[in-house]
């Protein structure tokens, strides 16, 4: 058993799957990070992913062009995020409740749409949808172990790495990033400083919709080659927990997403050892909650120590 696990962890095959399962979570986590930094909780990421996954498949099947499918999918993700923004920001609705509504509407709505178009409720296999290309990277490909893990992955995997850098730059190196954080910290102060909080929040919602859209398209046009009902499997919810684990940073999102990716990929392998698949399937979600608790525990301790120092001028003994 231990040998088997050691063997799994050493194999490039395992880490290839880890990277593959991490990427979609990473993308949505980034989306959760950027909206949370602006002080709005995007609970509709799950819905964005579902619609993106479906619209991507439909558009690529209709046009025969996978890139149009990808763009249409991302647009669908953005539309859901914008609806959340419209209700939460313009009509004073509770953003979390709007998220719940949009997820409910998306879970059934995607099945309804799929059935109306294909006559099938479960899978879009009757449509000739396209898949996003695999990419071989010239030099990395020849590296002994790393080449097998990092090269030959789906196009979106590399996009997700670029997305980390872009979100990191937006949040830390650009004026808009400062504005986003100012809005998240204190809306009134931001407004007094001449920032339009609603505009900032809408901006972050659009970005998160695009990221969730990319993730959704990857699920139906890369990870698998079809849309299936409930394809996002709660990844949008995981992202909201992973966002906390990430500590609200783009770089932290990589680690947070990896926690999910490692256990998700392990689930695929552990099924071969004869452990009950039901318990293994529960593992990624359970591990995310545990990670969530551990991180908030340390964050609270750090904050308590900081406050103590602030009030007494002494380090905590």
């Amino acid at each position, binding site marked *: 058993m231990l040998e088997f696990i050691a063997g799994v962890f050493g194999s490039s095959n395992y880490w290839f799957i880890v990277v593959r399962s991490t990427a979609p979570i990473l993308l949505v986590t980034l989306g959760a990070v950027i909206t949370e930094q602006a002080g709005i909780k995007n609970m509709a990421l799950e819905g964005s992913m579902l619609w993106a996954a479906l619209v991507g498949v439909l558009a690529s099947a209709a046009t025969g062009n996978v890139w149009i499918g990808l763009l249409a999918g991302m647009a669908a993700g953005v539309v859901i995020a914008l609806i959340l923004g419209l209700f939460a920001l313009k009509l004073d609705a509770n953003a979390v409740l709007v998220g719940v509504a949009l997820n409910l509407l*998306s879970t059934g709505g995607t099945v309804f749409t799929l059935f109306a178009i294909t006559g099938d409720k479960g899978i879009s296999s009757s449509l000739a949808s396209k898949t996003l290309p695999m990419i071989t990277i010239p030099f990395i490909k020849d590296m002994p172990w790393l080449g097998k893990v990092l090269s030959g992955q789906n196009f979106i995997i590399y996009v997700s790495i670029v997305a980390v850098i872009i979100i990191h730059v937006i949040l830390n190196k650009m004026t808009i990033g400062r504005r986003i954080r100012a809005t998240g910290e204190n809306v009134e102060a931001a407004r007094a400083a001449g920032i339009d909080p609603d505009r900032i929040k809408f901006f972050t919602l659009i970005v998160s919709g695009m990221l969730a859209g990319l993730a959704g398209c990857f699920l139906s046009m890369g990870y698998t080659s079809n849309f299936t009902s409930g394809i996002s499997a709660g990844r949008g919810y995981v992202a909201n927990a992973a966002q906390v684990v990430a500590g609200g940073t783009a770089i932290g999102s990589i680690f947070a997403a990896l926690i999910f990716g490692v256990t998700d990929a392990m689930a695929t392998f552990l099924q071969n050892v004869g452990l*009950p698949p*039901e318990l293994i399937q*529960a593992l990624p*979600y359970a591990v995310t909650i545990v990670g969530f608790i551990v991180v*908030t525990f340390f964050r*609270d301790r750090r904050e308590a120590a900081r406050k103590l120092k602030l009030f007494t001028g002494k380090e905590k003994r």
Partner: protein
Amino acid sequence: MNKHQEKRSLGKSISMFFTDREALEPALITLFAALFSLLAGVALIFLVSKEPVQSVQNFLLGPFLRKYNIYYMMIAMVPLTFTGLALCIIYQSKHMSLIVDSSFYIGAVVATAVGIHLTLPAGVHPAVAMLAAGTVGGLIGLLPAILKIRWRANELVSSLMLNYVFYFVGSFIILYFLRDRNQSILSSLPFKTTFLLPRLVPNSQLHAGFIIAAVFVVLVSIFMYRTKWGYEIRLIGANQKFASYAGLSVPTVILYSHFVSGFLGGVGGAIEISGLYKAFIWQVNPSYAWDGVIVAMLARKNPKFVPISAFFLAYMRVGADFMSRRGDVAFEFITLLQGMIILILASDKIVNYFKARRLKRTALQQSGQARAVAGGL
């Protein structure tokens, strides 16, 4: 409510209702949301169906055209009532947890175990199952509350994740401990006959759970509006800081409100399984908690209106089911309508539209008078 109000007659309270704009307007908006969703449903049917008129007729009138559909609606109201009541309590305390989904599902699993393995007389058997399921459901309900109190974890996020964990754990228990291996399809061992709830009407599926649900509506209404605990829950919902300054232990209130809510979910799961089935045969989680969100919102978080909104939702579900079996529109289209209802009712600007307009008009009148007075001077 004070004594003076309690004494007034029914007729008077009805007329009060129609003159009291504060009460009337939100009720009108709720009605509007419900009607709007039905109209949107009709529009959607015309969009996708090849026989739209027949489908619309099946959807809107189907539930009343057949006798069995009326029973079917009453049966469908039972789980909706339980999850709706559970979410009323959560929403009254201004929390968002959706863990009731797990409480309901695991409650059904616990009841299955009781129904298969315990030998008890009829009547006592389902009661024991309900109590066991309720207790386990309540304990599950506590988890997001503990995470919230101890680690400030958003209870909606943690409950959604826990729902996945408990779904897989529940189906693991069914598969490995309670499964009937002689059946080709996934099914638990058959229940003992003492476990099944009695039928209210012969040759129909309408079971005693309908009456139990009605009793629970009364109990929860009393709990929320006639006891100290209900008052405390409403108090922390109205203003958590004020409640804690007033000397209330906010964590305690959050904990027991979540326990009660989970308990209701668990009992609902047990009733559903012992009322409708002869063995546990759910292949997927029926997820009544999401419907419970709409029931609670349509009831304006008030337990006594839960039967009305549960009836409306049951009507929509039965109509959609009837239509989808006879036509080309998928049953799932009602989730679109349900989502719309939540969107409308969650929007303060829409719900308070009349109130805001009235306030604005009075404010303008007053400023007009002030200006006239100032001009006269």
